[in-house]
């Protein structure tokens, strides 16, 4: 089984993990990307959204399991073909939530280009934006190294 291990700086990542935990609680009952399902009847829509929510929560649990007790002693996270797919999805859910809840002031263009003056940001927004970039980096790593495994090609 292909496995990618990444050594992270604990002082840098620890505050981001705290934020990820907060966002995960926010996402327990709502979808990161609310879906327009007007053409579905109410029961079907409820079941559809329920399934999406269940999947989202499972993905977020997979991501959080990277940052367990062992992580805070060795600072290493590992991806493999079992956890890669849910983690990639969880990163997107969290990034969408960050955009909606903590990074509104930055504007979509800055988020898309990543062109943001960090010095001008308050601490809360700075942490949120660093978390946004960190999650993108995790996605890039997985897609770059485990893409064919995830796709089963």
């Amino acid at each position, binding site marked *: 089984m292909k496995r990618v291990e990444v050594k992270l700086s604990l002082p840098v990542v620890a505050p981001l993990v705290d934020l990820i935990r907060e966002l995960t609680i926010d996402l327990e009952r709502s979808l990161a990307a609310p879906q327009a399902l007007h053409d579905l009847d109410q029961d079907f829509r409820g079941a559809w959204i329920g399934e999406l929510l269940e999947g989202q929560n499972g993905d977020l649990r997979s991501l959080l399991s990277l940052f367990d007790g062992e992580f805070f002693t060795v600072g290493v996270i590992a991806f493999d073909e079992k956890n890669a797919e849910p983690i990639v999805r969880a990163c997107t859910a969290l990034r969408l939530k960050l955009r909606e809840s903590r990074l509104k002031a930055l504007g*979509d263009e800055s*988020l898309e280009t990543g062109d943001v003056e960090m010095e001008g940001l308050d601490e809360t927004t700075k942490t949120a934006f660093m978390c946004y970039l960190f999650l993108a980096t995790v996605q890039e790593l997985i*897609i770059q190294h485990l893409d064919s495994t995830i796709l089963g090609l």
Partner: protein
Amino acid sequence: MAESRSHTRTDARAATEVQLQDGWRVVVLNDPVNLMSYVVMVFKKVLGFAEAHVFTLQQWHLTAVLEPDEAR
């Protein structure tokens, strides 16, 4: 005396027309958050490529080509 009769004739005709239901399109909206590499990976995973279907058919020795769908 002349006899008159009235006749009522019912002529019922029914016709059934079979129509194909209109096709559905899946629309994925652009957003500033998702990375291009992520979107490409999801599309590949979820939708696959027509080329892949053609290739598989050819592996089974059927003649298959990829051409534009002019019905749409």
